[in-house]
């Protein structure tokens, strides 16, 4: 595993993955969006409003997946001082915050017509809002110190502390009574009929591939920025 900590090695793999993930993302959205928004059947109770689910569920899923990537990378950074791991976390954070925001906003738009309210303070909604705040706090903390190293470490510790929230979000609908419904994607499969499950899975694949592509592009920029920083530092040291 440690050989992937080498930035050159890592970027070689990432560059090989990029065209594939981009192709999968484009294909999934080209096929999935019309299926989800036009051709899938309306729900027996929700009618056309069910279509919000095809954006909401993948966004919710990704907001948790990206957080787990950030927490795992932060642990690797704190324990082994792997710079690439830290840069993966750094590159992922705005994406995770965006997924959490899309999840919250699409959920509110669904809640108003279905539940009769935009927002309630139940365990699921509250814990996802906290996830969004942790993302924002993480991004803010990264560059909050004059010494970048300290900011990186503080943010990584925050990411690890915040990982406590991930199981809480996932199990909130089982541990407590909530207004939010139970999980659609479970170990036993989906609680959806086939016509609805297919577009949903395609959208989940699309969101995941989209994240992989964007995070690789952002990671390349972060690596270049780190190189420039190092070059500046050695120049300043030489003078």
């Amino acid at each position: 595993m440690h050989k992937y900590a080498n930035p050159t090695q890592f970027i070689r793999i990432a560059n090989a993955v990029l065209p594939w993930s981009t192709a999968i993302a484009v294909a999934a959205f080209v096929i999935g969006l019309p299926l989800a928004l036009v051709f899938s059947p309306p729900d027996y109770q929700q009618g056309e409003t069910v279509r919000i689910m095809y954006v909401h569920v993948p966004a919710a899923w990704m907001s948790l997946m990206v957080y787990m990537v950030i927490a795992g990378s932060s642990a690797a950074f704190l324990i082994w001082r792997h710079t690439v791991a830290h840069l993966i976390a750094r590159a992922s954070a705005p994406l995770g915050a965006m997924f959490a925001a899309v999840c919250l906003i699409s959920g509110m738009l669904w809640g108003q017509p279905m539940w009769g309210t935009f927002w309630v303070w139940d365990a699921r909604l509250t814990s996802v809002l906290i996830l969004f705040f942790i993302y924002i706090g993480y991004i803010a903390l990264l560059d909050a110190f004059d010494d970048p190293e300290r900011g990186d470490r503080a943010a990584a510790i925050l990411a690890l502390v915040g990982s406590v929230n991930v199981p809480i979000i996932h199990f909130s609908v089982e541990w407590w009574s909530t207004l939010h419904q139970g999980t659609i994607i479970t170990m036993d499969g989906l609680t959806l009929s086939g016509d609805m499950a297919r577009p949903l899975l395609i959208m989940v694949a699309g969101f995941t591939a989209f994240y992989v592509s964007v995070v690789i592009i952002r990671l390349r920029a972060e690596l270049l920025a780190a190189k420039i920083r190092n070059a500046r530092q050695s120049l300043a040291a030489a003078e």
Partner: protein
Amino acid sequence: MTAKTMSRKNRRMILVVLGLALLGSGAALVLTAMNDAIVFFFSPSEIKERNLAADQRVRLGGLVEDGSVTKAGGTVSFIVTDTVEKISVSYTGVLPDLFREGQGIVAEGRLGPDGVFQASEVLAKHDENYMPREVADALKKNGHWQPGMEPVADTP
């Protein structure tokens, strides 16, 4: 790699694992202690067990019993059940679209001295079973309909 740096890495790993374990158990204790504040609603059975103080605002959640909805003027009366206990609810206001008999709902309000729950807000709860109308109809026809979903129209 020298033995010294190795041990430093191990120490950091132990620190991270220990920290997460402590944090996790701390969070578990807090959440368990706060359970009553975190649950969004109580079932009719839980409300009856609890001997609420007069005028205490709570949320009541359960299924709207079949055939229990009556409307008089702007006021709707219905019975909320968890299939064990029942509580009558009275509500004046606009109901959400998904409100119907057999549907899960959450009502916020106070339990009156007469045992009737005076709701100030009624929300519809939706479950995680999504399906097109034809599938729902087929399930009803085959008798595979599950409790909690909208009930079969012709059950006694």
